[in-house]
């Protein structure tokens, strides 16, 4: 088996693992033994047991169930964010790249400015000012991140725009729309997807980080960063409050990071 084939096989494997994870998040209720919000005062801060596989938290909620539901929130937010910045970045980058001239310059000045902001700082400020919550978190993170995709799209479009095959397509009578849908889009898609795949892990960490600071998802909604924040006070006496959500973030981020890496190896023509 050649190196490339092996990589492809591994990519399919890790892709299915990630897919399984997403599926798991979607069907979390079927697996969760308990209501993630239900409190059980008879079992407060109890370690893992057969009733509560990962133990209970400070108000007697099932950590296992909360982690399962938390996957929903974390992954859901991440993918919403991904979609937002992807469509936004793609649309704007495409316009900038295709039109050129003054529109391009203007768009690029804006992205330059946003890019010259330290992103986390800016995101924190936005959530801080608009107030915590899922909506504002996603808003803030998309505000700071769309530029990356806009730029990438623009660079890719510009590269392709002057390529021989676009000239050839023009001479074959292709109109602007056709150029975009038939030639440019299919050819930049894989690079964009690779970049997205590489960024998923970082996005999850950013969302969890904001929640950890109390700026993102608010309690009682189960979210891993949020759970860690609440569990901090019991670090020594009930470590399972920290261990499981932390492991959950770590594992999922790791899986998506591997996915990103292999996606780059497999999909990105530059790395073939």
């Amino acid at each position, binding site marked *: 088996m050649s190196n490339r084939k092996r990589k492809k096989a591994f990519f399919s494997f890790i892709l299915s693992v990630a897919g399984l994870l997403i599926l798991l998040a979607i069907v979390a209720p079927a697996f969760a033994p308990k209501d993630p919000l239900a409190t059980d005062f008879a079992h407060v801060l109890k370690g893992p047991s057969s009733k509560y596989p990962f133990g209970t938290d400070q108000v007697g909620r099932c950590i296992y169930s909360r982690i399962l539901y938390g996957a929903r929130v974390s992954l859901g937010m991440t993918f919403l964010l991904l979609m937002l910045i992807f469509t936004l970045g793609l649309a704007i980058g495409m316009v900038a790249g295709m039109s050129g001239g003054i529109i391009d310059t203007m768009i690029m000045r804006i992205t330059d400015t946003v890019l010259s902001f330290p992103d986390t700082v800016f995101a924190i400020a936005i959530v801080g000012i608009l107030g915590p919550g899922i909506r504002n978190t996603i808003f803030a993170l998309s505000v700071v991140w769309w530029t990356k995709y806009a730029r990438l799209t623009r660079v890719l479009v510009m590269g392709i725009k002057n390529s*021989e095959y676009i000239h050839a397509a023009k001479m074959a009578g292709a109109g602007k729309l056709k150029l975009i849908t038939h*030639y440019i889009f299919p050819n930049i898609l894989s690079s964009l997807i690779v970049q997205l795949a590489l960024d998923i892990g970082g996005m999850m960490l950013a969302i969890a980080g904001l929640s950890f600071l109390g700026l993102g998802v608010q309690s009682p909604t189960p979210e891993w960063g949020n759970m860690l924040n609440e569990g901090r006070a019991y670090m020594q006496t009930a470590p399972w409050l920290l261990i499981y959500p932390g492991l959950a973030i770590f594992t999922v981020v790791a899986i998506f990071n591997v996915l990103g890496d292999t996606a780059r190896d497999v999909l990105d023509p530059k790395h073939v």
Partner: protein
Amino acid sequence: MMDDNIILELKGVSKRFKDHEGKYFQAVNNVNIQLAKGECIGIVGESGCGKSTLARIVSHLTDLDEGRMIFNGKDVTGLQGELLRRYYKSVQMIFQDPIGTFSPRMKIGTYLMEPFRNFKIMDKGRAGKYAEELLGMVGLSKDYMRKYPNELSGGQLQRVVIARAMGLKPDIIICDECTSALDVSIQQQIIQLLLELKEKTNFSSIFITHDLALAESICDRIYVMYLGEIIEMFESQNIIRDAKHPYTKMLLDSVFSVKKFENQMRPTATKINGVEKVKGCVFSPRCPEACEICREKAPEVKVMHNGSKVLCHIC
């Protein structure tokens, strides 16, 4: 040459590029070219002299700064939109790098059918049939319809490109070094193919190359370009006799020959002095025969008795 026989004419075409420092660079300078129906003209010159830019101007992939372009008696300078699309029905180009001409994610079949669908010449089914015919014409089986470009060799790809260009039955085909990325043996086949097709359909062509010998073998007339200017034009029957310009001579001297390998190359040991801006003749800094006037005054076109033109003070 009768005027109504002329299909394309470039009049005083110029093109400047701005480099990253904001300085201008004259890539094409006051070029006049005439192309008659069914004629093949060659444009030769060393790398960077502006051959491709010229080709791209003709194919409207680059705008020109000055000059006019007359196609079939109509001014086609600055053509846009629908008119441009119609122009492309008559003018097709074959690029240097065959693989670069293909979108990596488009099947050969789709690629071939594109123009016919775009120009609404035929529906999908007929376009498919026609594409297969075209493949046959360039000597490829219809199995290639379903392949991706990276599964074909350079020579095969160039055949596909030619097939597509021919399919539109254009009046002009521009070949920008369409064989120089290929191996000599393949090169030979492609040239052969082009000559055959020309026999059949009698299109006009502009053949761009840096290889004088190649140009000689297929073109009717040859334009020699140097630093954006056409410095000489002659019929290709007898290059060695007709070529007068020192630069053309230099080019001739640099052509290797297998058959006459014993011939010593004339060492044209001019210093490589680069391309500083000169007042006079553009070639004067490198010209072995340059004299005072060459450096002072730009030469004017001289028409020789046999119809060739040259831009030189001395000859």
